[in-house]
């Protein structure tokens, strides 16, 4: 009975190998995850090599393959926001088992085989699942495997006090000391939600010698010291998950190094996150329970000194047919081609293209600048009016065109002297007169002849005889065919 000597795991691998997992991986997976498991196109897609997401509890990966994954997922400290399409209706259980067995045993991964029975059982247990999984959902059900505590010999000390900057802990006495055996710092190590501080101490491992970068984010303040030397600090009082997060670097030799993290919470929300990267580490290694917000790339879209720039995409606060113009001098407009009206104007930087230009580009991008004013949230013109595009002058300034029957409303915009946008409205052909709302989202009042206050920050100026009428605190402009009206929007 020689077969009996075959180890059980080898028998399972042999069963799964009836399907060629490598070949199936190449057919179904490698275009995105890469032939080397590192994520295709230089890591633009989530890596599987070394990824804890495909290791440990096999059910996590089986579920992702069966039902897909929706929304952001962090792998090695980078957030990916793609869509993993569900494969359960297309790929049979034995093939899914073969693919996952292959993935879990390749590129340094060393997790046990996945059997057809496991896939079948997971499929049966989730037969009602109609939507893709999200990363937080999966993490709750199947936490990622942790091989060794990222911070060895981790202890936490709690202090109470009313601080807005990190205190001198050497002069304070800790109320409590705890061992944190999972080796991850977490704000829950405190015993209250406001007016406290924490100090963690332990040892981190540098797999190889070289420069290591530490990324720290905190609400409120925190700093990292290695060998007693400050490496990075988030100072003062402020929120988590913003551009307050800081990076700092230090050269370390291969081996163990003492780390100390000091943290304070003043009032309100509290949180801390820390990660390290460097030679021998795949992406970012989390040193905290909470993942660090990855550095957000920005691709600022900006006008040149003498020409406006256009950004046509989904802009926060504007209907989907948004057309953004960034003018020289730091004034900006987002026109709605659905509403045939200016939706937003703002000052400062124009817009960050990174949301739409990296990965698939989900969601709306808010203006990058300041003093954002919403001029219109609804339609300015009757339902039969149609958007007919725009013309640019030699400086790239637009004149938008809307058709009304046989006539057109021309709506031209250009930057004014400073913190000003100048708008010229012209009714031509067709109707003899037309009334349009000037700011359906802002209370308007007359300040002086030809000067109106729009909301809190904006002044509207026009020639004195301009037919602007206030009704219920809103401004309406009456246009006469062939007589252009010039309006100036001025930020105070």
């Amino acid at each position, binding site marked *: 009975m020689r077969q009996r000597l075959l180890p059980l795991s080898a028998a399972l691998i042999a069963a799964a190998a009836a399907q060629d997992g490598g070949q199936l991986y190449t057919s179904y997976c490698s275009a995105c995850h890469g032939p080397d498991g590192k994520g295709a196109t230089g890591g633009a897609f989530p890596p599987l090599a070394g990824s804890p997401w495909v290791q440990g509890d096999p059910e996590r990966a089986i579920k992702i393959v069966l039902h897909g994954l929706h929304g952001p997922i962090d792998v090695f400290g980078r957030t990916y926001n793609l869509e993993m399409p569900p494969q*359960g209706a297309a790929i049979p259980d034995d093939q899914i088992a073969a693919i996952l067995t292959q993935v879990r045993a390749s590129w340094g991964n060393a997790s046990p085989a996945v059997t057809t029975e496991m896939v079948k059982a997971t499929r049966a247990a989730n037969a009602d699942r109609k939507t893709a999984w999200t990363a937080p959902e999966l993490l709750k059900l199947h936490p990622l495997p942790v091989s060794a505590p990222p911070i060895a010999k981790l202890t936490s000390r709690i202090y109470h006090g009313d601080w807005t900057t990190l205190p001198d802990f050497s002069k304070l006495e800790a109320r409590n000391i705890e061992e944190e055996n999972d080796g991850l710092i977490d704000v829950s190590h405190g015993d209250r939600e406001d007016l406290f501080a924490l100090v963690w101490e332990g040892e981190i491992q540098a797999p190889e010698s070289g420069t290591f970068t530490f990324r720290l984010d905190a609400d409120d303040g925190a700093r990292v010291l290695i060998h007693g030397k400050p490496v990075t600090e988030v100072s003062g009082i402020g929120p988590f998950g913003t551009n307050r997060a800081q990076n700092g670097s230090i050269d370390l030799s291969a081996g163990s190094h003492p780390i100390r993290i000091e943290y304070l919470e003043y009032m309100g929300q509290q949180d801390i996150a820390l990660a390290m990267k460097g030679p021998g580490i795949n992406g970012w290694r989390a040193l905290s329970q909470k993942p660090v917000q990855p550095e957000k790339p920005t691709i600022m879209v900006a006008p040149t000194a003498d020409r406006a720039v*256009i950004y046509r995409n989904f802009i926060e606060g504007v209907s989907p047919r948004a057309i953004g113009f960034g003018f020289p001098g730091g004034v900006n407009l987002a026109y709605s081609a659905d509403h045939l009206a200016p939706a937003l104007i703002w000052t400062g930087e124009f817009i960050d293209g990174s949301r739409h230009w990296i990965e698939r580009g989900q969601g709306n991008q808010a203006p990058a600048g300041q003093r954002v004013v919403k001029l219109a949230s609804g339609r300015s013109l009757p339902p039969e009016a149609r958007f007919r*595009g725009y013309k640019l002058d030699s400086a790239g300034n637009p004149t938008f065109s809307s058709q009304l029957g046989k006539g057109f409303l021309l709506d031209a915009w250009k930057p004014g002297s400073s913190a000003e946008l100048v708008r010229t409205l012209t009714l031509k052909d067709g109707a003899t007169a037309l009334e349009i709302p000037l700011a359906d989202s802002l209370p308007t009042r007359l300040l002086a002849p030809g000067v109106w206050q729009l909301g809190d920050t904006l002044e509207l100026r026009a020639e004195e005889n301009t037919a602007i009428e206030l009704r219920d605190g809103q401004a309406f402009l009456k246009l006469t065919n062939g007589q252009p009206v010039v309006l100036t929007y001025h930020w105070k």
Partner: protein
Amino acid sequence: MSPLLTSTLCCGLLLSAGHAQQQSDFYVREEIPIPPGEVMELGSIALMPDQKIAVTTRRGDLWICTGAHGADLSKVSWSKFAEGLHEPFGMFWKDGWLYLTQRPEVTRIKDSDGDGRADTFETLNSDWGINGDYHEYAFGSDPDKNGDIWAVLCLTGSFHAHSPWRGWCVRITPQGEMIPTCSGIRSPGGIGFNADGDVFYTDNQGVWNGSSSLKWLKPGSFQGNPSGNIFYDQAKNMGPRPTEPNDKSRILAERQRIKEFVPPAVVLPHAKVGQSPTAIVADTTKGKFGPWEKQLYIGEQTKSELQRVCLEKVNGLYQGAVFHFLGGFEAGIVPARQAPDGTVFVGGTNRGWGSNGTKPFTFERVRWTGKTPFEIHTMSALKDGFELTFTEPVDPASAGNPASYAMDAWTYIYQAEYGSPEVDQATPTIAAATVSADGKKVRLKIDGLVQGHVHHLTAKGVKSTNGSPLWHPEAWYTLNEIPR
């Protein structure tokens, strides 16, 4: 047998078959240099006068390239013609204007003052809905013989019809009117004409699409995904809303129930052939790219390939075969365009969807060397089998031997779930193979053809008269109809 003897024998066999055919013998693929520092994720390619070529990027730029036809590609030059376009997938030049299908509208643009930059952006039609969902793509065609632009509108998130006309094909007339034309679309990757001017699009595997496929946009037709059928009440020209399809059925069965249902002309079997089919180009260059006149080239984003399709109409429906053709492109192919001199231009992007190509984006051209590969040129259905036409005379002994061929067949579950496994497997048998007198055709008599199935032919044993095997010995024929 000693190891030495084995290897000698192998070498002998290889030598007798001549050197294996490879792409570079027949087609020269070259990357066209792009403006330094620019992110050129191409969405569309248009031919302009004076051999200039316009391309649009997913970021919304429009660049014009001079010299892309030239012998020395290091001499190409670029000028930026427009920016701030909303992810155009469709562009052509006509009478001094560039026409664009942008995500929210069909637009035509031109440079009125002659400074080399577009200054006039005329919206022809913006009557379809978008709600801010990134997946609500719009792919637009060249003008048809009436001047209409056909646009296929992806479902919201590729699943739903949350905005007007999602899941539809609409026509935009030269007067700017929008005409709902076909329903049933899921997630298109490209649109184009066959050589006779009928319109086709590629649709991606997903809900109600067991596999990706090439589909015929017969006006008035339903293409299979019922999500967008809620808009029939606003499309009086389309008649009443079609019967709702049964879930977990077969297309062949549902065609009997839903009279508007036009089945995919050519299924591009998932993972084997098609994973993300895109552009459609009909070769009308009369042989300037090889002997493929009137055949189609289909872009394949995931596999970074250009595949070849022969089509025929049987009992009123289009059907045909797909073959692997050109591969090795640097990124996932989305737009493709053939110039009158035969050159095929392709553009690629890997953003959001990965490909076998390793670069984030690419612009390439392919030219024919004048040497024709030994290929199955055409596969046509007969009432009792298939007729194969080859690009050169076959060796009658191998091509006349039924054992040189193998066939298997399958279909997919037509269902609301995402994709489908291959089901209802069958193995039709090659009963006889008869070589024509000129050696260019083989008539395969086949027992067990299955209507509605993809018929996968392998012809690994077939040799040309000089002993070469086929460059691509496989074909996948979608047998919607068996000739009567």
